[in-house]
Structures are given as structure tokens and as C-alpha cells.
């Protein structure tokens, strides 16, 4: 089966400063990974290890310095429009996940309108999606400031799912939420994946959350992937010393 997303030896270098102050930060070094259809790959690692950069590369927001990125078997087209609706993302900050001036329904409709402008069933589909993420129809006309953080994150997920994408990136999508809401969202992701079958990259520094939703886990450090393994394997016996240290906490 062709992986939905495949990174092949990808390196991303950020250059800053000029002349003598020129500095280069390798945010990703020779990273290779695949995500199979329907699979969730967890990505963990300390702050600054390159997780967000990886997600940006996968999404096509960040050009790579070296290496290849393939989406659905074909080299990644830089034009985001070319895969409109097939890739989506849910990001970290619930308060900026939604346009504060748009009604919930419009936020959810937006990606649909790109691929199928003005179809009458769009509206219906968006409403169905909202109810899928556990929001009653009455929320459709609310604006983001009338929602809680968890609710906003639900809308963001609905918005990501509405086009029936084959791949979704969750970059710290639950980190800002507190336990009870986090649990709701994690369950939601699992349920929706079971229903829609999308593949996903789940980025978090919360190992427990990653364990809960991921099929496989990759550990990043200083821009490199130090270990990739099945979740169950990982949490029982991580092999890389860094992973061991990381997971020690979970077991104590």
C-alpha cells in the first residue's frame, strides 16, 4: 500500500542573520518517515526538536532544503490548492484556530467551498460534521468567542474533517486543553478516525496522549528522528536512550 505521506531524507535549514552573524539552524536533519492510510503516527520530542517544522513540511507550507516529500505517491506540489480538501490541519491554539469574526458554520464551510463552491448540500454536510464532533446545530451560528476552548478545538476538527481528507496533522491539538476536555477530544479523534479512516500525524509533548491515539510513535531530537516504533513496543521497551529517558516519567 502506498504511504499517504512519505518524507525521504528531508533536511530543513533555517538561515538567519547576515554576514558574520549568519546562523544556520537545522530544524530537520535527514528525516525519513511514512504515514500509511488510516494510520496515526505520533511525533514526540522536546521543545525545539523540529516537530512543528516537520508538520509544516508535510503540509507543504515549508520548502525543504534537501530531500523529497511525496503525497499519495506523487511528489508534493507546492501549490496548496492542488490538494485542497485532501490534507487538513488542527493547530495548537484554540483561541486562534477560528477566525474570531466568522460564524462557526462559515468556518466549517470554508474548506468545502474551495473544492465544491456553492453546492446546496455543503451546508447540510457542515452541519452533519458539527454534530459528528458533538456540537448541536444551535452552535452553528455562534462566533468563536462564545465557545469554550474545547468547543473551539472541536470546530477546528470539524473544519478539518469536512472535506473528508485522507490526511490530517494535529500539531499540539490537545496540549492547551485541560484533562477532561482533552479526554473528550482524544476520544473524538479516535471515533472519527474509525468512521472516516483518515491518516494522521499527531504531534504532542504529552506522551500519554500520544500513546492513546497513535499506532506508531516517532521520537525527534535536535531535528532527527531517533526512534520509530509501534506504540505498544515503545511504551514497553523504548530502545534509544533518549526515548528511554523520555518514557521513564510515564512509568514512574
Amino acid at each position, binding site marked *: 500500500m502506498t504511504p499517504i505521506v512519505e518524507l525521504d531524507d528531508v533536511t530543513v535549514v533555517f538561515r*538567519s*542573520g*547576515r*554576514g*558574520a*552573524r549568519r546562523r544556520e539552524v537545522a530544524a530537520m536533519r535527514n528525516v525519513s518517515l511514512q504515514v500509511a492510510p488510516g494510520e496515526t503516527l505520533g511525533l514526540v520530542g522536546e521543545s525545539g526538536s523540529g516537530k512543528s517544522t516537520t508538520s509544516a513540511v508535510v503540509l507543504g507550507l515549508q520548502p525543504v532544503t534537501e530531500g523529497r516529500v511525496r503525497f499519495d505517491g506523487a511528489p508534493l506540489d507546492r501549490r496548496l490548492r492542488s490538494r485542497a480538501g485532501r490534507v487538513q490541519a488542527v493547530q495548537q491554539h484554540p483561541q486562534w484556530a477560528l477566525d474570531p469574526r466568522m460564524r462557526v458554520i462559515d468556518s466549517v464551510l470554508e474548506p468545502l467551498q474551495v473544492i465544491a463552491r456553492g453546492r446546496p448540500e455543503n451546508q447540510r454536510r457542515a452541519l452533519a460534521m458539527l454534530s459528528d464532533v458533538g456540537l448541536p446545530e444551535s452552535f452553528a451560528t455562534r462566533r468563536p468567542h462564545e465557545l469554550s476552548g474545547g468547543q473551539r478545538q472541536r470546530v477546528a476538527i470539524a473544519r478539518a474533517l469536512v472535506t473528508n481528507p485522507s490526511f490530517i496533522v494535529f500539531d499540539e491539538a490537545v496540549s492547551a486543553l485541560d484533562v477532561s476536555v482533552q479526554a473528550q477530544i482524544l476520544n473524538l479523534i479516535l471515533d472519527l478516525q474509525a468512521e472516516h479512516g483518515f491518516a494522521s500525524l499527531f504531534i504532542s509533548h504529552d506522551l500519554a496522549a500520544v500513546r492513546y491515539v497513535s499506532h506508531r510513535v516517532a521520537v525527534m531530537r535536535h531535528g532527527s528522528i531517533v526512534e520509530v516504533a509501534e506504540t505498544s513496543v515503545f511504551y514497553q521497551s523504548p530502545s534509544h536512550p533518549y526515548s528511554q529517558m523520555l518514557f521513564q516519567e510515564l512509568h514512574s
Partner: protein
Amino acid sequence: MQTALWTLRRVGVSVLTLLGVSILIFASVRLMPGDYADLALGPLASDAQRQEALAEAGLEQPVVAQFGQWLLGVVTGDLGHSYVSDVSVGEELARRLPVTATIAVAAIVLTVLLGLPLGLATALRSTRRGGGAGGRLLSAFGISVPEFVLGGLVVFLVSSTAIGLSVGGYRPPGEDLAAFARSLLLPTLVLAVACSAVTARNTRDAVLNVLVEPHIAASVARGESPGFIVRHHIVRNAMPPVLTLLATIVATLLGGTVIVETIFNVPGIGAYLVTALGRRDYLVVQAVVLLAAIVFIVANLVVDLVATALDPRLRAARIAA
């Protein structure tokens, strides 16, 4: 090192801006209808006389050549001579600069002395019930009274009351320092009113922005006294935006001095400019505008440097950019 490089880049950009200003000013003065010869000779003059006057002023050459010549002169420190008085523009500027500079510097000093404390006090009081409303209204009012209205009223009031001040009576500082100071007092005050008001408003804003920062909350939680917090944690933090504003004020002062120098009849750069514009004394106009642009750009540069020195975050951000 990084700061030096950043500074160098800033200076480069400034030079580019100056070039832009030069082209704009050069083009626009020459697009203005009428020319020096028309004015100096009057309608009764013959065409030959006109041509002669133009040639004498170097105005018969192609515009591009004139521009090149002027730019070359500027770079070598020669701003040319006034068509009207035949006095070297550079010398005349050097003579008049102290006047405008005195007004401007004094106004800025007053602005700092009045505006900053007022803004700080208003901001600190605004946490209390009804606090700072007086200060806010005062500054809003100060901003709203145009210089020409205030100036006109002051001229009238001063001349009709015996408070020992008079309008005009300018003497060069070398000749009679007291008269010099006296003649500049009123224009300075008039200028300072609006500037102080703007500064007060912006200082208030800047201080309020600092007040909401978590490190102030941390200071309060540590039991530091308000005076201590203001001295050590607020002033420096609130400075950069206020300095940026002061740089803008320095630049707009030239516009302000045009009005007050006219109203109070002091021979500064502003009055020089207005007269020169009316006479189509191109070189003078060009020189004064260039000078103003340089002041603006240098003031901004200095403020940027000081602000970066005060706030290391800015430094980091700027060097990265």
C-alpha cells in the same frame, strides 16, 4: 558586532530613503509653476533679462544635469547659493539652524518634562476610580488646539498684557543672549503644548502596555513598592515606543516651526523655507527639506539604536530580520 551590522543596514536604508526624498523634492520644486526669474524681475522685464537671470542661477541646464550637480554639491558639502540673496545656503542654514534648533530642542525638553510625567501619572492613576480622567482630557485638549490658534491667541494676549514678554524682538545669541531667549520663549511654549499632549497620550499608552505585563504582576506580588516598580521596571520598558514618538515629533517640529516662526517672527529654518518656496529659491527649498529629512532619519536611527539598547528583545528581533 551584530548591532554594528544591523546599524550599517539601517544606515544603508536611510541613505536610500534620503535619495528618494531628494528626487521627490527636486522633482516637485521644479514642477511648481513660476520660476525665480519671473519673480525677481517682475512682469516688466524683457525676455533677454529673464534668460540672463535664469542662466545666472544655472537654471537653463537640463534638469537631470542640475540634479546631478546638486547631488554632487550636497555630497561635497556645497549646497549652492540662494538666488535671491546670493548668500551660501550652507552658511545661511548654519546661521539659522541654532534658532530653530533652540526652539525645537527646548520644545522637546519641555515635552519630555511635561508630557512624560503627565502620561506616567495618568497611566498609574487610571487604575483608580475615575483615575487619570483629568490627565486624559488635558492631553486630548492639548492635542486638539492647533498651533495657529494657540499662537494667534498668545500673540494677542502677550501684546495686550504687560507681562514683560514681547513678540519678536529677535537678536542673535551672540549679540544679546537674553533677548534671544526671550524671543524664543513663546514659540517654544506654543510648540511644546501640542507635543506634550501627544507625548502624554502615548506615554500613558506605553505605560499601560507595560503594566499588564506579567513581570509587573510578579513585582507587585513580591511586595515591591510602586515607586520602586516605576523606577526599575516601568520606565525602561515603556521607553521604546515613547522614544519612537519623540523621533516623529522631532521631525514634525519643522512643520510646527514654520507656523510659530511665522507667527512670532523668528528667523529660523521654517520661516526661511516658506519665504524660499514663495520665491522659488530652489536650492534653499531643497536644502531645507533635505535637512528636515536628515533630521527625521537620524532621529529615527538614534531612537532605534537607543530603543534596541533599552530593550534587548528588539535587538534580537532586529538582528534576526
